[in-house]
């Protein structure tokens, strides 16, 4: 490809140094492995987990702050400026967010495992500062976005949820010693809902409107159903949060029903995009995303059953596992395996004047191993939670570790190929 330096001059401000997104992606991949290791080590506490210090709590935060937030930031920092046509004002806040989160997340996880106040607070402060910095960068770009009102509207809810989840998180940590919250469990449930559905959920739902058409090469989805899906999801989030704080089962059931309606519309929109795609072959990343979409309704469905008194084996624990491991982790590994070789190709085109093919940069073998191990982990751990079987949970976590190692292999190969292409 003939790309003169001047040709990319105007784009350079929108194309961040490769080290920025790839540092976030590399961290996401490492924390992915650490989360599975923590779940493996704490398998005997998983089935009965209902909050409190321990390895399951550490595993949750390694996954949410380490893998989910890092993936979202790496993707948002690079792709938002491209999509909105608004360059970031400066790169240093993205690096600051990274260097606050990288030590903050493991310190927080260590503190959550042991209950030791010093690492707990140091980690919480680092992670909160990192999230706040990243939120400010994303908010500034969304503020200047003109073309994508649906994506921006989802982004604003995510930013608001970020403020709510960090406030609730800090309050929960303080309450472990101070005991000032009237109902610790209620605030913890609100924190889970706002973090998983409000922050990560709205980022995933919103970015899907631009990322999926980009991946599948499809037109933008219809706007009216997208707004309906958004409205229903906002209502579900607000009502679910209120239901958690007030411990009102009727409100929780209403929120779950609204959430299911929002999910149904979102899935219809995703199916529309996939149906209209120019890229006829469904690559592995899209098939992984299909698995995530299958698992997306499980959360509100189990929530509805629990709220209406229908017994669910594993109950709230299964809800949390299918929400975090089933929907969000599956979807984000699908995004990562598509976006990493694509960005690597964009960056090498800039530097070398010739772009290695995306298909040359990716590594299908490790991704296939990851997909099989990840799906097996989800199935076996879900069964283990439902049947209260520690052995099954540990076996499932071992499969998750194998999948995470394979994913790491894929990531290392891309980084090595990127560096080789940059050296040419």
């Amino acid at each position, binding site marked *: 490809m003939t790309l003169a330096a001047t040709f990319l001059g105007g*784009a350079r401000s929108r194309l961040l140094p490769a080290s920025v997104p790839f540092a976030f992606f590399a961290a996401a991949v490492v924390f992915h492995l650490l989360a599975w290791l923590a779940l493996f080590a704490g398998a005997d506490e998983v089935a009965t987990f209902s909050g409190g210090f321990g390895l399951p709590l550490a595993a949750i935060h390694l996954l949410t702050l380490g893998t989910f937030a890092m993936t979202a930031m790496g993707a948002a920092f690079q792709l938002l400026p491209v*999509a909105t046509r608004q360059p970031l004002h400066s790169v240093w806040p993205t690096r600051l967010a990274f260097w606050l989160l990288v030590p903050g997340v493991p310190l927080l996880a260590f503190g959550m495992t042991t209950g030791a106040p010093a690492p707990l607070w140091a980690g919480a402060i680092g992670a909160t500062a990192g999230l706040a910095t990243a939120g400010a960068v994303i908010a500034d770009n969304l503020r200047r976005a003109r073309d*994508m009102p649906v994506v921006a509207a989802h982004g604003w809810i995510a930013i608001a949820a970020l403020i709510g989840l960090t406030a609730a998180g800090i309050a929960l940590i303080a309450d472990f010693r101070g005991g000032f919250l009237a109902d610790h469990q209620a605030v913890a449930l609100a924190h889970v809902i706002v973090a998983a559905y409000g922050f990560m959920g709205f980022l995933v739902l919103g970015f899907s409107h*631009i990322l999926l058409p980009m991946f599948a*090469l*499809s*037109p933008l989805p219809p706007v009216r159903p997208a707004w309906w899906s958004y409205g229903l999801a906002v209502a579900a989030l607000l009502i679910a949060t209120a239901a958690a704080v007030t411990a009102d089962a009727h409100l929780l059931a209403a929120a779950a029903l609204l959430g299911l309606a929002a999910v149904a519309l979102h899935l219809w929109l995703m199916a529309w995009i996939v149906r209209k795609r120019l890229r006829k072959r469904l690559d592995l990343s899209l098939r992984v995303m299909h698995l995530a979409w299958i698992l997306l309704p499980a959360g509100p469905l189990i929530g509805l059953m629990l709220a209406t008194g229908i017994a669910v084996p594993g109950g709230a624990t299964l809800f949390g596992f299918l929400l975090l491991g089933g929907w969000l982790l599956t979807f984000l590994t699908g995004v990562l395996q598509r976006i990493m070789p694509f960005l690597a190709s964009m960056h090498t085109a800039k530097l070398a004047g010739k772009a290695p093919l*995306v*298909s040359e940069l990716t590594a299908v073998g490790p991704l296939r191993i990851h997909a099989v191990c990840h799906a097996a982990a989800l199935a076996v751990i879900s069964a283990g939670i439902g049947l209260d079987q520690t052995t099954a949970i540990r076996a499932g976590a071992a499969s998750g570790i194998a999948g995470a190692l394979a994913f790491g292999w894929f990531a290392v190969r891309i980084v090595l190929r990127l560096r080789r292409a940059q050296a040419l």
Partner: protein
Amino acid sequence: MTETFAPQWLDDDGAHIDVRGLPPPEPLVAILTLIERADVPDTVIVHHDRDPLLLYPELAERGWTAEMVPGEVGEVRLRLTRAP
């Protein structure tokens, strides 16, 4: 429902497509749809309002090259050529 409309015409220097004003990723889809058509000539001129960063990996994957050519003020004009 969103419909992509990108004016297209044939000229002496090849097929032209004007994707200015389309939101991302509509320009990408319109350009790739055009070059995947059986009857498209070996040269396509793209009239764009920004540097289409997402396009280049997709072009390379399809065996096309891109270079910038002079255009109007505020326009990014690309000549896409099918690799021999």
